[in-house]
């Protein structure tokens, strides 16, 4: 049991779990949703990735754990194939998840976090997130299968049926209402309102966490400068979400679930929402402890734990470490490497327009394409920065103290 707990603790480390999550997400999209094959180029690519993890894991043990977990997930997903979307399998996955959660509650450290009245709804929401994503993807998969066979989507089939409002709608709604009321009452009686001591300005709690809907941002603060993580990126998220209807010109998928017909849109959104945003929130809630140090879910929140913070800027890496020169005084020279990298990164959009994404460029037109592309690039900058931080302890790519601008 202790070994299993340690295994999970190590797996939960932000870097490891993010890699695992991204890779498994990609595999699910490729294999289970798009019916990819192992024996194809894509499939081989996934296996090679796993092998790289194992090999690297011989030097860095956490990667070994990651590789093992990765292959276990792959094996499971391959075994299930398209049956992943069957109701029975879904139910078993749900039961399995709930069982694992309940078993984890036996661990006192995990219990302290998960059973805290503030965090109980978050745990519930994680389950709900999983359930509804799975349901949606299942419906999409079924529809895709139907469409491939040339038939109608099930929404169309269903919309030919007629039902009475009473009792089929209203009666069942009332039953749901009663059941929900029971759940609410039991919840409020069972879990006390989390009232703590009166706020004392001289004594801040450790860790001082934001509410769950801001924990994603608070977690981003680890990787980004506050200006970016607190102002620019949230604004772009909101603006981007508002802009989606204007960027997305795909007429397919209106009123019915489908994955194949909206691969990119759904894929990008799911990646951004689940793998980036929800992952950050889960990390912020369960895996961040005193002093915002990382703690595995079964690890004791020791306020005295000290991890060396030896993060280094790109400019320092290049000038001081590699070239053994003092940092130049003028920021334009000092940050030239970082600035060039950023410009190159931003230049990816027009480059892609000429190359792999030409199709999109033509379809959407210039303005739409560029707006969408830059939003996409900004979104991707988060995982890129995270990976750079984990691999190279990179603090800032561009660090301009003089005008308080850092990337």
């Amino acid at each position, binding site marked *: 049991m202790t070994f299993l707990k340690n295994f999970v603790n190590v797996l939960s480390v932000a870097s490891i779990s993010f890699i695992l999550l991204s890779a498994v997400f990609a595999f699910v999209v490729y294999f289970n949703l798009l019916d990819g094959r192992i024996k194809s180029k894509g499939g081989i690519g996934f296996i090679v990735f796993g092998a790289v993890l194992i090999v690297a894991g011989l030097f860095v043990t956490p990667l070994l754990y990651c590789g093992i977990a990765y292959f276990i997930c792959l094996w499971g997903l391959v075994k299930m194939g398209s049956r992943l979307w069957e109701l029975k399998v879904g139910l078993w996955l749900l039961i399995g998840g709930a069982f694992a959660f309940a078993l984890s509650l036996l661990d006192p450290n995990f219990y302290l976090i998960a059973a805290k009245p503030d965090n109980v709804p978050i745990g519930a929401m994680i389950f709900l997130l999983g359930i509804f994503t799975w349901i949606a993807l299942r419906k999409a998969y079924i529809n895709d299968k139907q469409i491939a066979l040339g038939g109608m989507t099930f929404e169309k089939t269903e919309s030919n049926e007629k039902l009475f409002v009473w009792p089929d709608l209203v009666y069942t709604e*009332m039953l749901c209402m009663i059941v929900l*009321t029971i759940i609410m*009452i039991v919840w409020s009686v069972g879990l006390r309102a989390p009232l703590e001591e009166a706020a004392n300005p*001289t*004594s801040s709690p450790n860790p001082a966490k934001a509410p769950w809907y801001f924990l994603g941002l608070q977690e981003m603060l680890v990787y980004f400068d506050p200006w970016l993580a607190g102002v620019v990126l949230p604004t772009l998220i909101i603006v981007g979400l508002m802009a989606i209807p204007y960027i997305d010109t795909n007429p397919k998928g209106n009123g019915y679930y489908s994955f194949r017909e909206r691969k990119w849109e759904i894929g990008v959104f799911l990646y951004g929402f689940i793998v980036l945003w929800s992952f950050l929130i889960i990390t912020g809630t369960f895996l961040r402890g005193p002093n915002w140090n990382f703690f595995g879910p079964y690890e004791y929140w020791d306020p005295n734990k000290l991890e060396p913070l030896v993060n280094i800027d790109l400019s320092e890496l290049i000038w001081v470490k590699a070239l053994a020169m003092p940092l130049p005084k003028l920021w334009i020279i000092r940050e030239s490497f970082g600035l060039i990298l950023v410009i190159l990164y931003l230049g990816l959009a027009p480059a892609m327009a000429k190359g792999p994404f030409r199709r999109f460029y033509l379809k959407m037109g210039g303005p739409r394409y560029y707006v969408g592309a830059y939003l996409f690039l900004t979104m991707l900058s988060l995982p890129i920065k995270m990976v750079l931080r984990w691999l190279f302890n990179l603090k800032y790519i561009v660090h301009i103290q003089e005008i308080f601008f850092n990337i």
Partner: protein
Amino acid sequence: MKPQEPIPHNYEMRKLNLIFALTSLGLLLVTGIMVGYDYVRGWKWFQLEFNRIQEERIEQELKAKNDATTRGRLAEIDRGTRAAQVEIAKNRDAYLDAQKVLDEWEGKHYAADQDYRFAKATLDAQRYVYEASVVQHRSDQKEQQGKFDELTARVHNLNLRLQQATRDRDAARARVDKFLTRIKELEDKKKALTADAELLNKQLEAVSARSKRMVLNAPMLDFINPTLKIDQVVLNDLFIDMNYMVVPRVDRCMTCHRAIDRPGFESKKEAERLAGELQRELDANRIQPSKRAETEEKVASLRRLVDAPRDIPNPFRTHPKLDVFVGSASPHPILEYGCTVCHRGQDRATEFGRAGHTPMSLRMERRWQKVKFPLFPGSWDYKQRNWGYEVNPFLETPMYPRQYTEAGCLKCHAGQVDVREGEKINKATHMVELYGCHACHKISNWRFTGLQKPGPSLEGIAEKTTPAWAVRWISNPNHFRPTTRMPSFFYQRNMIGPAVPAREREQNVRYQDAEIHSIVTYLFDRSTRRQWNAGPQGDAGRGKQLVESIGCMGCHIAQDTVKDAKSGAMRVARRDDFPLERHFGFNLTGVGTKTNPAWIFNWVKNPKAYDKLAPMPSLRLSDSEAADITAYLMTLQKPKFMEEPLRAPTASAVRELAKSYLIGTMTDNEADAKLRAMPVREQMLYLGQRSIEKYGCYSCHDIKGFDGLKPIGTELTIEGSKTLHLFDFGFVHEYQHEEGHKEHILHNVPSWIYNKVRSPRVYDDERTKPYNDKLKMPNFHLSEEEGRLVTMVVLGLTKEKVAANRLAANDARMRAIEEERKIISQRNCRACHVVNHTGRAIAPMIADSNFLPPDLTPQGGRAQSPWLFNFLKDPTVMKIRPWLSVRMPTFGFNDHDAATLVAGFAAEGNGPQFDTHRFETPAQQNVAVGREVFAMLRCAQCHSVAPVDPANPPVPNVADAQSLAPNLTLSKLRLRHEWIADWIRRPGEMIPDTRMPANFPRDPETGGFRSPLAAAIDTPAFAAQKAALLPYFESEEALRKTMGDAVALTNYLRDYIWSIGINQMRNAGTTPEGPAPQQQPTSPPVPALQTGEVERRPLRAPDVGGRSGRRSTTQTRR
């Protein structure tokens, strides 16, 4: 309409209906559970249980009231009533006749009354008509006038008739009443006898009305008028500071602690104590006669409590000492103070865990935690005393564990030296003052500012002792002197304890040796080297007698071993074997090993010559006395101590430690170079200076060159408010204490502090720290009780502010008294004197109680301020009791201190400081009468009335009982005018063990004083005096009356004593006194070693009007 075809439903209706039914039942169930949780509250069980206990108690009391004697008397009364009724029956006819006559007369009276009233009304109406006709000049004036006159006459007649009827009726009634008086008397007697029982019955009814209660407290109906409700006290001015606003304190403790302010539910121990106290008061006739019966009843009731089979369980007990706390007549009534002001805790909580109850010990914590509260706590849980304990991690002010309750006194009583009824907190603050916690830890509190340093001055250490002794002493003070106040700094558990790895231990020992030797080298290098001349040779035997008789034993102990109370064998003495006052001066055993005869001789003759600020007073010893004492003290040796081997310091250790300080300001290489250039002795001097700074020796001792440095300990001013997470528990939860047993550290603040003061370095266990970062607090080797008391003080120092009108002792009179008491505490007056009912530590040392120093409790009302001032300055101005071998020393008070003492005593006496009675001459006849009374009462048997020189009175023959009373000619200068009469009347009440007889004993019935002369004046023995007195009175009757009036007699006595008093005494000021406080040190400042250290702060400017003692550096202005 077209018939519609059946449309298929999506769901089966029957299934849906079933689900509806089940979920509705579920909702009902869950709602029931919710109401249940809301309604079933723990505190309701406590109130119900208390009702049950109350019932039991009332029934117990009723049973006692209904005992045999009462029953007998009631039966008697009933018999009497029946007899009276039989009487009436015998004269039944007469009675009936009388009754009939009465009825007739009642009727007649009623009629007469009505006639009269109606006639009067008609008359008034007629008057109006008549006057109207006169005013309006009508023609029928005459007519109306006639009618008016007629009616007037009629009314008059009717009135007479009414009066007659009334008289007749009253007579008839009297006749009837004659039959009934006896019965009425008996009924009144019965009512008086059963009054108490009636009351109890009513109470019983109120408490046990069951069915009514069930309805009133039912779940949905209990908003109307429930019998079970939350009981609270709202205190607006004792607010709680919530950091951004203040909220009123709302104490709800009495919701469960129902009987906390009700007498009658004491624990057995408390009932025993209270019964004993009341019985003593009854026996000493101190209760007013009207209240005697009540008090006796109370004692009986308490005794019944003690004899009851079971103790009243907590939380239903009455608060102990209801007359001091909580009771409505106490200084802290519960309606004005609540509970949490003293006990802390969450005021508004109504559950055991949330209220912040803190267990006293690990065992108690385990007992409370044994069973976790189930999901739905029920009465069976409470019956098993499972209170549902949980630690509330967010509560910043949990309750004090019971052993530290008196910590709560300090927030209001910190301006007092003596808190009445606060023995523990008084001892605790005295201990903190004596052991000198305030010296290293700043406490910005009146009680602990402006105090002298607890240790002797080290500026002249080379004159007093030798480096060999000093090194051994500092290494382990307890070894030389088991009762010392000096703590152990070195070789503690974080240096050589079991948790320290072996290799580090060896290095620590080397470092500690180096530090000790360096400190001693530094001190002796910087010491003055005055020459003290040895005195003449003395006799050790005489010296021993002197030491034991002139008063040294009040402040000093001279023994190392005591007889164990339990086993009877001799064992090593501990500090708590002696009262605190006797630790003021150091334990004299071994003093011969420590120092040399020349120093001792000069010290006992004049301590201030060695150290201007020494607290030791001068006993005005002659040379031969001082020589004798020196000879005796030199015999108190401890040669084995000096024979113990000393480890010499290693040069490498000195160098490494010196380097560790140097590299704070220079590089490694520079430090090495510097050290290579310094000879070892210079290195040791440098290391000594830095070590003295490190360990803070200057906080307790005056050391040249260290004036004005800040104390090194944590500031404790608001330590009691520090939240738990700021205390560093380290890795230790239990440890082996040096006394041998295992100590557990509970995870709360009191436990942290208790273990810290008992074993200061324990939180370093199993930690890796560089040498200079290790914990430095020295080990005071506190016993468990001492540790608890010190913890109590620290817990009581909080940041809570109390409004000025709630602070104790905040008026001018009390401030004067407290300032006086502070000086008394600082100069250790209680070593010899009783002050405010406590003290006189020297008492066990003096066999005959007649030779004890006087009780100063009544001193305020007794002594005149000019005399007191002079006496304090120089006790030789008046020797009131020349038979005492214990002598009042010359303390060398400066003017400020002496004036404070005098003002304080005057305030205690509730009188003006100065008066002009001294210049009055009493009336001649008063003096004459007084003289005769003086003769009759034979005062001269003990009191001499021959005028003497107060500074040199004749030494009496102490075998002669007559000579052991003060000479009365001294009274005019010394005693207050009004006090003399009061003293003569009630000496035993003022000073319980005085030899002065009570010539005017108290009369238990009136509470006044009885005069023995009332009867005695007529006896033949006093015939002469009677004859002498008669001319001054109008008549013999008047004389007799005066002889029976104690107040008058004592006034005459006073006037007589006033008339024989002397008018002049020597003033103080001709003997040398202590130095004025504004003296700068005269020696040049020590040149700082040029080793790159931070520049020292300049010498602090002295306070204006400061104290005459040595001040610790934590003084703040007030």
